[in-house]
């Protein structure tokens, strides 16, 4: 069947099998491989993208269901070459390790900030509770979203995490302030 889907502002028309999942349409047909596939059961959230402005798990959405609709993926987070505050927050606060869950986490986090510009840690945890991260223990993901929220609001970002240190290792610099240019590359 023929479908037309607008992804990150670009319209794509393709002939697809009716059973094709949206995640495979994005990854295999459009070669937008930033969204990942991690389970088949809507548990892990590595595949979260926006469908008409709402986060969905694209492993349980048919590509045909996106016909005529708007999809936004991690590749569409940055605008005009500028990273989204959420992307910057994850890099600043070590909100990712292997990077596999990160696109889905960031898409949900961006949606949260659009609807709640000053979320509490508990609200962030609730918003991300349908997604799994196997590396970070979630703490730095929460900090990343708090950092991004502060940047969006124009507030001072949260300081470095409090680690009780005894001994001679160099002091942690902590996440730099957002006033500095993005330089993770």
């Amino acid at each position, binding site marked *: 069947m023929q479908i037309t889907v607008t992804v990150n502002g670009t319209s794509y028309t393709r002939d697809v099998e009716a059973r094709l999942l949206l995640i495979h349409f994005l990854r*295999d047909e459009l070669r937008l491989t930033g969204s990942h596939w991690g389970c088949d059961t809507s548990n892990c959230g590595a595949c979260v993208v926006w469908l008409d402005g709402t986060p969905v798990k694209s492993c349980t959405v048919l590509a045909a269901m996106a016909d005529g609709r708007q999809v936004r993926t991690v590749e569409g987070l940055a605008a005009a070459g500028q990273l989204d505050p959420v992307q910057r927050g994850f890099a600043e606060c070590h909100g990712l390790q292997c990077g596999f869950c990160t696109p889905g986490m960031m898409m949900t986090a961006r949606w949260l900030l659009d609807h709640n510009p000053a979320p509490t840690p508990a609200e962030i945890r609730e918003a991300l509770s349908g997604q799994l991260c*196997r590396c970070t223990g979630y703490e730095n993901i929460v900090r990343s979203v708090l950092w991004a929220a502060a940047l969006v609001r124009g507030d001072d970002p949260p300081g470095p995490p409090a680690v009780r240190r*005894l*001994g001679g290792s160099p002091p942690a610099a902590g996440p730099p302030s957002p006033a500095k240019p993005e330089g993770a590359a």
Partner: protein
Amino acid sequence: MKSAYGSMRRKEDARFVRGLGTFTDDVALPGMLHGAILRSPLAHARIISVDTAAAEAHPKVRAVITGETLERRKLAWMPTLSRDVQAVLATDKVRFQGQEVAFVVAEDAYAARDALELIDVEYEPLPVLADATRALDPDAPLIRDDLAGQRDNHIFDWSAGDQAATDAVFAAADVIVTQDMLYPRSHPAPLETCGIVADLDQVSGKLTLWSTSQAPHAHRTLYALLAGLPEHKIRIISPDIGGGFGNKVPIYPGYLCAVVGSMLTGKPVKWVEDRSENLMSTAFARDYHMHGEIAATRDGRILGLRARVLADHGAFNGSAQPTKFPAGFFHIFTGSYDLRAAYCEVTGVYTNKAPGGVAYSCSFRIAEGVYLVERMVDLLAAELAMDPAELRMQNLIRPEQFPYTGPTGWEYDSGDYPRALRLALDMAGYDALRREQAEKRARGEHMGIGLSFFTEGVGAGPRKHMDILGLSMNDGADLRVHPTGTAVLGISCQTQGQGHETTFAQLVAEELGLSPDDVEVVHGDTDRTPFGLGTYGSRSTPVSGAAAVVAARKVRERARIVAAAMLEAAPDDLEWDGGRWQVRGDPEQGRTIAEIALAAHSGLDLPDGVDGHLDAGTVYNPPNLTYPYGAYICVIDLDPGTGEVLVRRFVAVDDCGVRINPMIVEGQVHGGLADGVGMALMQVITYDTDGNCLGGSFMDYLLPTSLECPSWELGETVTPCPHHPVGAKGVGESATVGSPAAVVNAVMDALRPFGVRHADMPLTPANVWSAMQGRPVRTDLAAS
């Protein structure tokens, strides 16, 4: 000169936050075909026939591979990392549910799956052995009838320590406490499953594999041995890896099938397993049935420890650990305590369950050893009516005893254990927590406070003692400084999220007075990096990191000679200060590495025997393991009406020696603490008595989310490693190893008023409830 160490943002994040990482499943080659595996629905059955005619007739199918196809090429069986063999595709019978039976290569992934439905396999069901405790019964079904001379399900007996001395200590002890406990079967479940793209160039004969491999160099050698291909014609590219945790150490049947698929079709073949395949067939972890005994004086001096373990290795012994150690490093099970004697014996058995064993951040079975000793110490504290913190403090190895040789032969390198425990108690506000607990108990509320103190030996390892399949556990590093003073470091280990591209750049930058931004780290490509055994067992910083530093120091020494020629001074008259070589006593006369590098590539006259350019390579053979340790305290609230456990706080003090990038170290600890909460409270791969895997999806195999994890409270002490070039120790698995016992001890602490002494992980609400009713359940086995 500013130190290159310290928290800095990771270089690799620039691509990940943009969705521009390259994971194996992101690789797409022209003409690429897709593979899928037909798996056994039965746990134990004879294969009568495999009919592939209908599948082969599918218009999009290019090849169907069966055990028979592979047998003709002598590839139906492959060696495991424990010198057993494992079926690539079953020929005689299937031995666990989910075992590989046939492989379809088709034009797209959906068609490959369709074709699996068209394969007709006739099975003759056989009696199933899913209960490890019955494996050695005389009437147990024989699983490995493929092995000549194998008459039962016994794999190995192994022991460590001094049995007679331990018996004597126990005979003289005031108090002996015993406990049976299961460390249940778990699965690392990296969010990215395992997969491969195999591309055999029909002209050059070169086989290129994009593979989710934690050990690309070791894999290359194994493929050469397995498939009979010349090793220089194999290139393994391990691109971005979506978490490993040990799951991506072995070679899996699907990898070999993809290679054969590429050979047969002349096209690249991609195979990526789905989540159920990952959970049901790839390397599991733990599954240790342990009996512990601890002996002490009445006033709380721990004297000895004994353990007897039944190790369930599944249908093939695919456990990955150094050859001499079939139970891994379990025998470091005396943990952090100064005991007089200890003895452990381990028996490994086959069952009709998936193979594996050492695959989940366990530091080669130290996870099981730490859990055993930390549960036993808590049970002893209860028996002696002592506070568990006080009992631990009283028995920790003292700082002045290092280097300390434990009763089973491990030489602990350095530590100040009481300091770490004191910091953890202080951070937790331990005394106040105990008061709060007493007040709450008085009004019928139930909270628990659990401690664990762990020591690991990580960074395998010294070549004298440690190898895998005959390959020494050493790692190489190649460092080249370009004429303009930026550098490329090639390493043999492979990041799966640990941030090697950043940490290793910091290591080199610190040695050469460069900025980490000026050091590029190349890894995960066997054609571009030196040989080494890869990333697992927390060995990257202890072994590969040491190699990087040694290579950098070699470069620095060569730079000294070049600088001496530039300054017309004797090399001995130069000193390294502030990131450059300068004439002793005349700091005006100095040269940076960038200046020296340009000169080294120029026509500068160098002394005889000194090469131009500025590069060095090395292979690092660690003199010992490194011994990180930590003190953990978990606080939980228990709902006695439902058995639900809420982790309220978790305090973790880690000492992993010098921290190169503290931000990354803390991230490693965070992740491991979540593993501990998961294993203690929810993660388990249970089988029913018919051998059906009951943890085959994320609907059934529960992992902790952001709601089950508290906000971690970290502390650190720094006791440098005396034998590592920069004093660092491994840390990647510390929290996974150390934290489950703290959570379980906290739950058992909360359950004391209910007369519960022990219940096995995972402490789900149902299991806690059963324990409260005096009916603790077996978590490894369910009724059919």
